[in-house]
C-alpha cells in the first residue's frame, strides 16, 4: 500500500523529467503524447487500485499515510514529505488523474503540429504531479508546495504561447496574463503562509490529522486562533479558486491553450480551495464567522460571475466566468457546512466543465483560432458529435434532471436553504438561472443559426477521434455522474443512497458534529418544492435563451444588448473590477515604488545624506587647505600670533 500511494504522484513526475529533459529531441509527437498521457493514465489506474483496497477495508481504517523522508527540521519544528490517502484525497486524486488523463489524450490532437508540443506535455505532467502533491499531502506545508507548484504550472501554461498578444486591462501578451495569475495567487498564498505560522505557534505541527484532532479537543467554537487561521486560509482559497476579491485573474487565464483551461482553470486546480476547506473542515467548523464569510463570498461570487457571463462574447471567457460562478456555488455549500455537497459539485463540475471547454476547444480549432461567438454559428451540421456532447454538458450545468449537475446543484441549493435561509437560496437560484441562460446562449450562437464565419476560408470539420473520444467519455460521465449523490428524498430506501456522502462521512463527521449537523434521513415536502422550483428556474433560463439565440441567432444578441441597456455595458466591462484594481492598486504601487521610495527617499534623502556628509567633509577640507599656503612668512606670522596668544593666556589666568 505504501508503495502504491507513493507511486501515484511518482509517474507524472517521471513523465515530466523525461519529457522536460529530453523531449526537445524526440521526433514523434505520438510518442511524446503517449508518454505524457500514459504517465497520468498509470496514476489513474493506481488510484483505482487504492480505491478498491480502501473499499475492502472497514470505514474506520480508510486512512493510509506513507512517509518518504523528513523534509525540513529545525529546532522543534519538523515536517515530512508524506502522503495520505483517505476518502477525501482519493476523490480528488481520481478526478485529477481521470479527467487529467482524458485531457492529456485530447491534447495530442489539439496541440498537433505545435512547436512546443513536448514542452506542453512536460508542463501538463508537472501540473498533475503538483496537483497530486497538493491533495495527497498529509501536512499543510507539503500542500503548500503543491499549491504554489500548480500556480507555477498555471503561469507557465497560460503564457505557453509566449509570443502571442492577448488583450486585457494592463495586459498585452499572454505571458502578462500568466504573471497576473501568479501575482494574484501569491497574494492569497501569503494568507496560507501566515496561517501556517499561526498553526505552528498554536499546535506545533502542520500535520492535518494532528491539527484537526487538537483543534477539536482544545479550541472552543469561535476561538480567535481558529478564526484567524481559517480567514487566512480562505484568503488563499479566494486566490486559487478565483473568488471575490481575487477573482479577476481567471478570465485572463484563458490566454492559455484550451486544454489548459479545461484541466487547470476548470476541472482541477481552481477547486483546490474547496479541497483545503474540506481538508481542514473541523477547523473551519470552529470558526462560525469564517463560515459565514465563506457563504457570503461564495454566493456573491456565484451571482456576480454568472451575470458577467451573460454578455461576454469570447467563448472561453463565458466559460471562465461560469467556472468562477460554479466555484462560488461550491464555497457557498462549504460555508453552510455542506462539505460533501461541495465536493460532489467539484466532481460533477469537473466532468461537465471540462467537457464544455474541450468542446469549445474543438470549435476554436475548427474555426482556426476564432473565439468570438458572434463570428460562429451553424456549427451543428459540421460538428455533430461536438454539438451533442456540448449540449449534454450545457444541460448538465443548467441542472436539468437526470444529468449530474442537477444532483450536485440540488444538494447545494437545499443545504443553502437549510443553512442560510431563503435569501441564500434565492441568490443561488438567480445564479442558476443565469447559468442556464448563458449556456444556451452559447449553444444558440455557436451551433445554431446562420454561419457567420468566413465560409470561403474556413471549412469547419469534426475533431479527430483522439479529441472526440474524450468528449464522448466526459459526456457519459456528465450524464451518469449524478448517481454518486442521489438524495434520500428521491430514493427513500432505508439507507442513504448518496454514495459519495457515505464515502466521505468519516472525513466530515468531526466537523459536522461540531456544527451540530447530525445526518438524519428524513424528507421534507419543502425539499421537493425547492427541487421543482429550481428545475423550473433553470428550464426558464433555457427556454428564454433558446427563444433569443436559437430561434433568432445574432439578432437575439442585439436584442439582449438593447434590453439590458446600461446594465449590458456594466456587465460587459465586468463591473469595472479590473480597471478599479489597475487604478486603485497597481498604479499607486508603481508610483510609490518609482517616485516616492526610489527617487525621493532612496536617491534623494538616504543617498543624499551619505553624499552630503562626503560633501561637507570635502568642503571643510577645502577651507582648511587654505591654511597651507606654502608661504613661510605666513607660517611665521601665525606662529608668532600663537605664541603671543599662549603667553597672554598664561599671564592673564
Amino acid at each position, binding site marked *: 500500500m505504501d508503495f502504491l500511494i507513493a507511486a501515484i504522484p511518482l509517474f507524472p513526475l517521471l513523465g515530466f523529467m523525461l519529457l522536460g529533459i529530453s523531449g526537445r529531441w524526440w521526433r514523434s509527437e505520438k510518442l511524446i503524447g503517449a508518454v505524457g498521457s500514459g504517465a497520468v493514465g498509470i496514476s489513474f489506474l493506481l488510484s483505482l487500485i487504492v480505491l478498491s483496497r480502501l473499499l475492502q477495508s472497514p470505514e474506520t481504517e480508510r486512512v493510509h499515510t506513507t512517509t518518504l*523522508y*523528513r*523534509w*525540513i*527540521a*529545525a*529546532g*522543534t*519544528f519538523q515536517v515530512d514529505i508524506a502522503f495520505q490517502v483517505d476518502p477525501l484525497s482519493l476523490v480528488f486524486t481520481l478526478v485529477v488523474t481521470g479527467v487529467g488523463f482524458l485531457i492529456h489524450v485530447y491534447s495530442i490532437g489539439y496541440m498537433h503540429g505545435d512547436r512546443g508540443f513536448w514542452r506542453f506535455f512536460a508542463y501538463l505532467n508537472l501540473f498533475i504531479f503538483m496537483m497530486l502533491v497538493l491533495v495527497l499531502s498529509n501536512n499543510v*506545508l507539503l500542500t*503548500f*508546495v503543491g499549491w*504554489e*507548484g500548480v500556480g*507555477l504550472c498555471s503561469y507557465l501554461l497560460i*503564457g505557453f504561447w*509566449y*509570443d502571442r498578444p492577448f488583450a486585457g486591462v494592463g495586459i*498585452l*501578451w499572454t*505571458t*502578462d496574463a500568466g*504573471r497576473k495569475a*501568479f*501575482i494574484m495567487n*501569491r*497574494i492569497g*498564498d*501569503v494568507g496560507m*503562509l*501566515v496561517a*501556517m*505560522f*499561526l498553526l*505552528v*505557534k498554536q499546535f506545533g505541527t502542520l500535520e492535518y490529522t494532528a491539527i484537526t484532532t487538537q483543534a477539536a479537543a482544545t479550541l472552543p467554537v469561535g476561538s480567535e486562533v481558529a478564526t484567524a487561521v481559517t480567514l487566512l486560509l480562505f484568503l488563499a482559497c479566494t486566490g486559487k479558486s478565483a473568488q471575490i476579491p481575487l477573482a479577476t485573474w481567471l478570465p485572463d487565464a484563458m490566454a492559455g491553450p484550451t486544454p489548459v483551461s479545461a484541466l487547470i482553470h476548470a476541472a482541477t486546480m481552481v477547486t483546490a480551495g474547496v479541497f483545503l476547506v474540506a481538508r481542514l473542515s473541523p477547523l473551519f467548523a470552529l470558526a462560525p464567522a469564517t463560515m459565514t464569510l465563506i457563504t457570503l463570498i461564495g454566493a456573491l461570487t456565484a451571482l456576480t460571475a454568472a451575470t458577467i457571463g451573460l454578455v461576454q462574447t469570447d467563448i472561453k471567457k463565458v466559460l471562465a466566468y461560469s467556472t468562477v460562478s460554479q466555484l462560488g456555488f461550491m464555497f457557498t455549500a462549504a460555508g453552510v457546512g455542506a462539505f460533501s455537497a461541495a465536493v460532489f459539485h467539484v466532481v460533477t463540475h469537473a466532468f461537465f466543465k471540462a467537457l464544455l471547454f474541450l468542446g469549445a476547444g474543438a470549435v476554436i480549432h475548427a474555426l482556426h483560432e476564432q473565439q468570438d461567438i458572434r463570428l460562429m454559428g451553424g456549427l451543428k451540421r459540421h460538428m455533430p458529435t461536438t454539438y451533442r456532447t456540448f449540449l449534454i454538458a450545457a444541460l448538465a450545468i443548467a441542472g436539468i434532471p437526470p444529468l449530474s449537475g442537477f444532483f450536485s446543484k440540488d444538494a447545494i441549493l437545499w443545504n443553502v436553504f437549510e443553512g442560510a435561509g431563503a435569501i441564500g437560496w434565492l441568490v443561488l437560484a438567480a445564479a442558476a438561472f443565469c447559468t442556464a441562460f448563458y449556456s444556451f446562449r452559447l449553444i444558440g450562437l455557436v451551433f445554431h443559426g446562420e454561419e457567420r464565419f468566413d465560409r470561403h476560408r474556413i471549412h469547419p470539420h469534426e475533431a479527430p477521434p483522439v479529441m472526440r473520444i474524450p468528449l464522448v467519455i466526459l459526456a457519459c460521465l456528465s450524464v451518469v455522474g449524478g448517481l454518486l449523490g442521489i438524495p434520500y428524498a428521491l430514493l427513500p430506501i432505508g439507507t442513504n443512497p448518496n454514495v459519495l456522502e457515505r464515502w466521505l462521512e468519516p472525513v466530515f463527521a468531526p466537523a459536522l458534529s461540531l456544527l451540530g449537523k447530525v445526518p438524519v434521513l428524513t424528507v421534507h415536502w419543502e425539499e421537493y418544492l425547492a427541487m421543482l422550483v429550481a428545475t423550473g428556474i433553470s428550464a426558464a433560463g433555457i427556454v428564454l435563451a433558446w427563444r433569443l439565440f436559437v430561434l433568432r441567432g445574432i439578432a437575439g444578441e442585439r436584442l439582449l444588448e438593447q434590453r439590458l441597456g446600461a446594465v449590458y455595458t456594466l456587465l460587459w466591462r465586468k463591473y469595472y473590477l479590473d480597471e478599479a484594481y489597475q487604478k486603485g492598486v497597481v498604479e499607486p*504601487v*508603481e508610483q*510609490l*515604488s*518609482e517616485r516616492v*521610495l*526610489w527617487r525621493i527617499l*532612496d536617491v534623494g534623502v*538616504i*543617498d543624499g545624506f*551619505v553624499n552630503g556628509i*562626503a560633501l561637507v567633509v570635502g568642503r571643510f577640507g577645502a577651507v582648511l587647505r587654505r591654511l597651507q599656503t606654502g608661504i613661510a612668512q605666513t607660517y611665521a606670522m601665525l606662529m608668532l600670533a600663537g605664541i603671543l596668544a599662549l603667553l597672554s593666556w598664561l599671564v592673564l589666568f
Partner: protein
Amino acid sequence: MEFLLVALLAVPLLGFGTVLLIPRERLGWIQGVSLGSSVLTLLLAIGIWLGFHPEKPGFQYVVSVRWIDSLDIGFRIGVDGVSLLLVLLTAFLMPLALLASLEPIRHRQKEYYAMMLLLETAMLGVFVALDTFLFYVFWELVLIPMYFIIGIWGGRNRVYAALKFFLYTLVGSLLMLVAIVWLGVYAEQHAGGFTADYERLRQLAPTIPLELQRWLFWAFALSFCIKVPLFPLHTWLPDAHVEAPTAGSVILAGVLLKMGTYGLVRFNLELFPQASFQYATLLAWLGVVGILYGALVAFAQTDMKKLIAYSSVSHLGFIVLGIFSMTVEGLQGALIQMVNHGLSTGMLFLCVGLLYERRHTRELAEFGGLARVMPLFAVLLLLAVLSSVGLPGLNGFVGEFLSLLGAARSRFLDNFLLVVLGACGVIFAAAYLLKFYHSLMFGEARNPENYHLRDLTWSERLQLVPLVLLFIWIGVYPHTFLNTSELALRGLVAKLEQLRFGVTNISVPPSTPAPERQPPATPAPEPQKLLEEQLRRMPPPRP
C-alpha cells in the same frame, strides 16, 4: 586533520603568490593557476565538510598559533556548523566567478586574478577566524582587493563606486576595531589579561555590564549592518553592483554581504546577549522594512544590476529577521538563506553578465523576446528567478519559511505584525522578479540585435548548471545542510534563552557542557556573581 583548514587558507594565498610570479604574457597559465587553486580550495572545503562531525559541539579543525603574546593575540582558526556552510559557499562560488571572468576581463588580467585569489583567502579567513584581531585583519583585507576589482575592472562610474564602497564600509569597521580593543581591555580588567581569544571572550561576554554591552553591540552591529546592508545603510550597494564586473558582483552579493550577517550571529548574539535582547526588535523591524522597501524599490528599476542589488536588500531583510528572532528555526533559516541568496543572486548576476557580454547594455528595455532565441538560457534563468522568488521545492523557500517561522515563534520578538509584513514581501518579490524575467524573455524582440543572440556556451553552462542542481538539492532535501549547523545554533539559542528566561527547553546533547557553565580559562573575579547581578538588572521576562 587540522591542517586541512590551514591548507584552505594557504591554497588561494599560494595561488595569489604564484600568479604574481608568472609573466603577464602567459595568460593561460595565470588563468589555469587561479582556476586550479580555486577548485582545489573547493575540494578542500568539501573535504572539511565531509570530515566535520555535526553531532559534536564546539569548534572543529581548531588551529591555534601564538602571534602577539603580550596581548594574547593569536592565529586561531576553526569552524563550526555556521561558518562551515559559509566557507562552502565561498569556495563554491569562486571557481564560477573565475570562469565568468575568462572572457570579459581583457586587460591587466594578471592583477585581476591575483586580486581574486587574495580576496578568496581574506573571505575564508573572515569565516574561520577565532580571534578578534585576526578576524579584523581578514575583514579589512577583504576591502582592498574588492576596491581594486571595482575600481579597475568596473564600469564607467567605477571610481565613485569603489570609493563609496571602501569609505562606507571602513567607517563601520573602525568602530569595530575600537570595540575589539575595548573588549580586550575589559578582559584585562576582569579576567586577568588582555585577550583577543574568541572562546575566552565568549565565556566572559555575559558578565559585561549592560551599559558597556550596548556600546560594544552597536560598534560591531554598525559595521556588520553596513555590510549586510541593512536599511537605511544600503546605498553603497546599488552603486557598487552596477559598476563592478560580473565576477565582482557575484562575490559581492554572494559572499561579502554574508560576512555582515555572519558577524551578527558570531559576535553580536554570542558576545553581547543582553544587548541583543534589547535591540532585537529594532533590528528585526529594520529587517522587515528592508524586505518591503528593497522589493518595492527593485520594482522601479530598469537597470538589471540595480534591480538585483535592491532585491538583495530585500532578501537580506529575511536573514536579519531570522537572526534576531533568536530561535533555532529562525537562525537556521537565516543561515540557509545566506547560502541560498549567495547561490540564487550569484546566478542572477552571472546571467546578467552573460547578457551584458552579448549586448553591452543592462537596460531592461533593450531586451525582449529572448525566450525564442536563447531557450536553454530561458529555462535556467527561470529557475534562478523562481529560486529567488522563494518557490517551494527550490532552495529559497526553505530559508524564507524558516526565518519567518522563527520570527513567529520567537519569545524575544513577540510581534506577529513583523511576520505578516515580512510574508507580504513574497508578493513584491514575485512582482519585480517576474517583471525582470518578462522584460527579458517575452514580448517583442524590439531590438534587431536580439534576433541572433547565441544561446549558452559550454563555459556558461558549466557555471549555471551546478547552481541549479544546488537549488533543487537544498529545496528538496535541505537536511544535508541544515544538519551541519543545527547543533551549533541550538547551543547558541539555548545559551540566549538561559540568560533571558533562566530556562530553556532546547535540547542540546548531554555531552555538551552548557557553555555558560564552563569555567573560564583564567580565573576571573567571580563572573558568576557578576552574571547574577546582570540578570537581576534585566527587565523581568514576559510570560
